[in-house]
């Protein structure tokens, strides 16, 4: 068979999903084929790009394989972010159902960008690290919260909290000095970046979604591959996809253990002493109301222009899973 060179764009480095799974899968291909397939794996940090123009890079064929955050690209293609709206799910089983129901839609929606849909997986719920005790939506009211993206900011507005947008590197300082009261991030990421040193309360509300990504191939590249190579890559990726779905709750749990100091911390460093609060049943009902009465309608409006059937499609897929009755 022919020699193949694959240029892969991953997501942000320094997280287990990328360093231990995704990167290894791609770099492992070379070994398995005795060097016939050569891959070059770059993370967003390594390439020095932000990731919100990923679909444009896909269309131009800059990379052969791309890992695309559905929320980053929601300005270019709003339909994809449906799986990752704030507080759309509180557990990974539901999230997986949502994802599976919408898979076909995502596969269809990347086609105009010259994309071939391969896999879809979540990182961790983007939960709240707060300075003050925050165990309920009520306590969140009036707080300044660092989030990015329109749906999360809209949700905060409904909760009478203030959304503040800050550059990633500035958040730790901002929390420390009280410029913001809370920030959203994954538990492990927050722990690794020592947010537990400047905050005291961990509120397990996936306000920033689950940082979900899809992995997509450039169509021209994909069609240039032999059938057996396509199969090889597809099977490796399906395996990795399963691993990544199984991994997400574990990584989330690890981060919580380390940030709270309860249970064994396997991430190294000095575990924190944060308090942990889950979202109460009552608050979930309230968030569900906001999701269905504000966030989803606004999202539908935003994707209508480029994809007029997006509302219907949503109701038929994700809507069935989360129980939208109209």
């Amino acid at each position, binding site marked *: 068979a022919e020699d193949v060179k694959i240029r892969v764009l991953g997501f942000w480095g320094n997280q287990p999903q990328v360093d231990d799974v995704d990167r290894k899968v791609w770099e492992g291909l070379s070994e398995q084929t005795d060097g016939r397939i050569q891959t070059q794996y770059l993370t967003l940090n390594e390439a020095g790009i932000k990731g*919100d*123009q990923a*679909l*444009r890079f896909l*269309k131009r064929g800059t990379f052969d394989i791309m890992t695309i955050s559905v*929320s*980053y690209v*929601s*300005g*270019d*293609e709003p339909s994809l972010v449906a799986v990752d709206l704030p507080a759309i799910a509180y557990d990974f089983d539901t999230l997986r159902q949502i994802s599976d129901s919408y898979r076909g839609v995502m596969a269809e929606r990347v086609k105009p960008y010259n994309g071939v849909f391969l896999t879809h997986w979540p990182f961790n719920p983007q939960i709240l690290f707060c300075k003050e005790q925050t165990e309920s939506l009520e306590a969140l009211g*009036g*707080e*300044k919260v660092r989030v*990015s*993206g*329109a749906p999360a*900011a*809209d949700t905060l*507005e409904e909760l009478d909290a*203030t*959304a*503040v*947008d*800050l550059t990633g590197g500035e958040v730790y300082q901002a929390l420390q000095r009280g410029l913001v009261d809370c920030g959203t991030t994954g538990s492990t990421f927050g722990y690794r970046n020592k947010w537990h040193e400047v905050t005291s309360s961990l509120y397990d509300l996936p306000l920033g979604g689950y940082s979900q990504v899809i992995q997509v191939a450039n169509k021209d590249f994909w069609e240039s591959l032999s059938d057996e190579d396509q199969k090889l890559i597809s099977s490796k990726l399906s395996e990795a996809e399963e691993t990544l779905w199984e991994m997400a709750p574990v990584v989330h749990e690890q981060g919580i253990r380390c940030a709270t100091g309860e249970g064994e911390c396997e991430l190294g460093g000095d575990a924190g002493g944060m308090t942990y609060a889950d979202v109460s049943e009552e608050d979930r009902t309230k968030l569900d109301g906001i999701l269905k009465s504000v966030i989803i309608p606004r999202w539908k409006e*935003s994707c209508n*222009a*480029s994809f007029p059937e997006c509302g219907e499609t949503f109701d038929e897929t994700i809507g069935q899973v989360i129980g939208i009755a109209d």
Partner: protein
Amino acid sequence: MPLDMRHIVNRVETAIGAVSTAFCLIGGWLLIALSFAICLEVILRKVFSMSLQGIDEYGGYALAVTSALGMAFCFYDHAHIRIDLLVRRLPSPLFRASSFIAIATLGATAWYLTSGAWSVTLESWEFGAFANTPLRTPLYIPQGIWAAGLTIFFVAIVVRLIRIVIAVMSRDYKTLTETLDHQPEDEVVEGVCGVE
């Protein structure tokens, strides 16, 4: 014939120069307005826990747009840094050739940026792209202004190159001296310019 062309080109260049200076002043007032808005935002946030929303978004656009609009002004002001220490010691014709190549290369750079900017803008238009912020600004608007700013930069360089070519053909040494010879302010633009 060349004399007419010369007049036209000179006029065009004067016009672009005036436009770029005007944009630079508009950009400056934009920065002052942005400062006041940020000031208000900081006070609202600290005292009332409120936010104007979108300051950071508009601030980002302001940087893109103003720095693009400032590029042409910078070019006329010899503010884009060029290191001519070695070539300055060359005989005048060679130095002028090097200046010409430098301007042409800067033109190529401006062309790459300008065409890239337009293709990003057209993509945004095509996708109906909007900013992933509560304001959901249609991206082709700030990007279009940004691309237009870079276009002025590119056009300014092209007009300058045409002017030089005409000057060479008509042996207009005054223009050649003005456009190609070492300008003392190339080292550092009159007092305050550089950054570091």
